[in-house]
């Protein structure tokens, strides 16, 4: 089969390179940003194309992997020569071979409206959002947007390698960020959410806004959180920032190889209520894809089952080095870097979508069983240390729970602890999960979870 990547493959053969892969990424972004009720900036389109490549050199048991990337076709030959050179400099005793997998998993990742008509889609959404917020203002409410971002992405990826693999995928994202301010003439308060979805229809204005406006308004009357050990219910967004960088990190085969994980097969690591899967195949989840960034099919892998650690997740390299099979967890990742440049990133052994199995309690039941506790709607910046799982984060938007009732809005004060202690103190999980992104981590499918004996530092 000839592909449009053949011309690039010829360059590797011309450079006498036997083992390589080449990753081509085209990203198209369209965006409107708001300043108050006004349009601040229109960005249409923002387009980028990039090539990332890996070249292998072998010498007995020694293997070198050279990485290089560029953004112009005219630079490809230099880029290939660089990768070839790098692969000769960093040879080490390790195993690697490019995947030959022809199989793809089937999963939905594209919103046709974003792919085919992004400008009109954004304009319609912006109009709808502003109309809703203007109606709210005209009804006497003091809630108003201070800024907003309405953005679409189309990622188009092609991946080929010297082992005969040739794959393509398309993915869409919709990003909404909005700061809603409320004032009573003296005090000011804000709710500032950020959300990624695959489809624009997953963030319907009329479904989102009532809750967001309520959160902004309630925060005006917020008090600082109390101090002590108490029940804390975290929403899916907060769980994304808590669980993905800790459980996801320690579940990676890479950490097993480096002796950096506290997980072991068969070890009890959480309460019996908790089951977590790496689910790379849930339709429209944020990290779902037919194949990972090395070409291995994504899949579902049980990580924790009823509190017991079951399986590590693997990219190609760590699977080979530990005599396991890839679980489709080779993801191009770089901290604090823009994912539109992911062709430049190295492949990292990371989770796809961390999926937490729902429990059997309704949300109301979860709350009603709490004597003294806190319901978290948004932390300031939950960023646990991946090794220790320790964190300490400010409460931005939350509610006090007293005797089974949601009462006083809260802002300020800290929630602190270790995520690995939290997951051993689960007393309830709600019965429905949703696809969410966090502030610091990207993708989770999670319900609400109630933790006990959590340290809250307030007044």
């Amino acid at each position, binding site marked *: 089969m000839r592909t449009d990547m053949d011309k690039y493959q010829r360059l590797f053969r011309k450079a006498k390179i036997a083992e390589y892969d080449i990753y081509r990424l085209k*990203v198209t972004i369209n*965006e409107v*940003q708001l*300043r108050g009720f*006004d349009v*601040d*900036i229109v*960005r*249409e389109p*923002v*387009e*980028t194309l*990039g090539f990332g490549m890996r070249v292998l050199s072998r010498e007995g048991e020694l293997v070198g*992997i*050279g*990485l*290089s*990337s*560029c*953004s112009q076709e005219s630079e490809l030959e230099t880029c290939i020569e*660089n990768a070839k050179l*790098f692969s000769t*400099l*960093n040879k080490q005793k*390790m195993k690697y071979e490019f995947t030959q997998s022809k199989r793809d998993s089937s999963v939905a990742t594209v919103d046709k409206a974003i792919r085919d008509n992004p400008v009109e889609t954004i304009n319609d959404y912006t109009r709808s959002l502003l109309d809703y917020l203007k109606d709210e203002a005209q009804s006497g409410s003091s809630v108003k947007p*201070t800024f907003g971002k309405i953005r679409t992405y189309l990622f188009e990826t092609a991946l080929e390698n010297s082992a005969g693999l040739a794959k393509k995928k398309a993915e869409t994202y919709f990003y909404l*960020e909005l*700061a809603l*301010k409320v004032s009573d003439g003296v005090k000011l*308060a*804000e709710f*500032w959410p*950020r959300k990624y979805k695959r489809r624009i229809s997953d963030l319907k204005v009329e479904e989102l806004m009532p809750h967001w406006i309520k959160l902004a308004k309630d925060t005006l009357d917020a008090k600082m959180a109390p*101090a002590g050990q108490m029940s804390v219910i975290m929403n899916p967004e907060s769980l994304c920032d808590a669980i993905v960088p800790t459980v996801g990190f320690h579940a990676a085969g890479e950490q097993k*190889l480096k*002796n*950096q*994980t506290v997980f072991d097969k068969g070890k009890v690591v959480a309460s019996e209520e908790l089951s977590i899967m790496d689910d790379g195949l849930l339709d429209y989840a944020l990290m779902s894809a037919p194949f990972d960034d090395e070409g291995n099919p994504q899949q579902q892998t049980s990580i924790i089952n009823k509190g017991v650690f079951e399986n590590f997740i693997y990219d190609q390299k760590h699977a080979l*080095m530990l005599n396991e099979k890839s679980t489709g967890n080779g993801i191009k990742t770089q901290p*604090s*870097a*823009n994912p539109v*440049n992911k062709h430049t990133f190295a492949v990292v052994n990371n989770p796809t979508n961390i999926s937490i199995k729902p429990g059997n309690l309704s949300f109301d039941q979860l709350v009603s069983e709490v004597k003294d506790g806190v319901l978290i709607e948004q932390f*300031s*910046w939950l*960023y*646990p*240390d*991946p090794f*220790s799982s320790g*964190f*300490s*984060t*400010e409460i*931005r938007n939350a509610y006090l729970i007293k005797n089974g009732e949601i009462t006083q809005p809260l*802002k300020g004060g*800290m929630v*602190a*602890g270790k995520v690995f202690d939290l997951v051993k103190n689960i007393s309830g999980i709600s019965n429905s999960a949703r696809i969410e992104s966090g502030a610091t981590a990207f993708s989770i499918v999670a319900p609400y979870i109630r933790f006990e004996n959590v340290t809250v*530092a307030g007044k």
Partner: protein
Amino acid sequence: MSRNSQVDQVYDIFESLGGVLDGKVEYWDALYDSQSQCIIAKDKVEEQISTPKLAGVILRAFKDGIWFSSSSYQVDKKTLVDMAKKLVKPAPKPGTKIKLQALKTEKTDQELPVKKDPTKIPLEDKLEDVRRVYKACGAVDKRIINVRVRHLDTRIERVFANSEGSLMRQVVIRTRLLVYPVAREGDKVRADFITWGKTKGYETYEERDIEELAKEPAKSAIELLGAKTPPSGEFTVVVDGYMAGTIAHESFGHGLEADQVIRDRSYLSSLVGEKVASKQATIIDSSVLPGGYGSYVFDDEGVLAKENVLVENGILKGFLHDRLTSSILGSEPTSSSRVESFLTRHNVRMSNTYFAPGDMTLEELLEPVKYGVMLIHASFGMEDPLGGGIQCTSSKGYMIENGVATTPLSEIALSGKVLDLLKNIDGVGKEFETGSGTCGKGSEDFIPVGDGGGHLRIKKAIISGG
């Protein structure tokens, strides 16, 4: 100066854009952005060498109170002229009427000087340095089970042109080392890190003994294995220069970015000229700090870099501005408009933000503290421009007992209100240090910044442990 043919082509293209845009929009500008990096990373399993490259152009037009922008990786005349033609289409719906103030025409072609251009250092030599650092760090203790070392050198070349006739070029080179050892004892795994980065060339690694530098986080990670959980509550704290910088930047500086003011979203909007901090506090944002990781020649709207005093002896002096905010608020631009790359928008941003040094030694700061907490090694912070809340976290600390740092403590977060914290500063150290890092606007658009200062002693600070 070494302008290549690509840049010459960019000059030619930019000079032709006026033919499409002049007179049809109120203002336009174009920014060519070329970024090339060399990354060498090593840990116990692998070594990685990579040289990512990005290049493209942002074209912006201002009309009817709205910015219209388009970006492309295709840097050729046809593409950019077509982009420009699309920008002159009438705005679908005019926004608020705003007139951008005119600025003087600038012509600059400057490369920030480096003694040792990293692009001229052989890869083998860089790799050897990374291996030396890895070895030195790992040799500190048998409980160090892994060390991640990452060398990064970056060359950013930008060409700016606008409808006022400015035509400017700058080259900025940065060099940075990250050392991240991991210690393990039984089931306890702890890590710490250190970074050393400058807007300089490879001579950055000659200003400190990088092997000795690498031992510091290893000793710290070992100490963290036995660290206690910090107490929670109100304490007198002493923070190191890096934590001071994080407070200046995250907790305070973001509220001074004037885009938040024109959005009516800054708790500092009405406080210019007012006392917002102890008189011992002077806070500066300077894009001309020699070697500062956030330094440059001009910002991404073509305004020459400068030093901006934000707080002088406790009094708030002013905000950080771009062209739009300075026009709306009647101020001068402060050279604070920055983009992450040609793929992101211009935002008002900081550069190198720091507390000016005081006159006290660390011993003098600690001496009167009977029972307090010391916070060192800033790990991150988060802004709260409207609420004025604070969240800055250190990866480590110590109890202070009778004027002496004693028991090691694990991760500690500062919380409360920024202005309360700043007003409670009662001592500023004279040992000035600035760190290197990246800063996001919210949770995206990451740019290189520096921050720092001297040690600060702060009364009644609210802390909690992780």
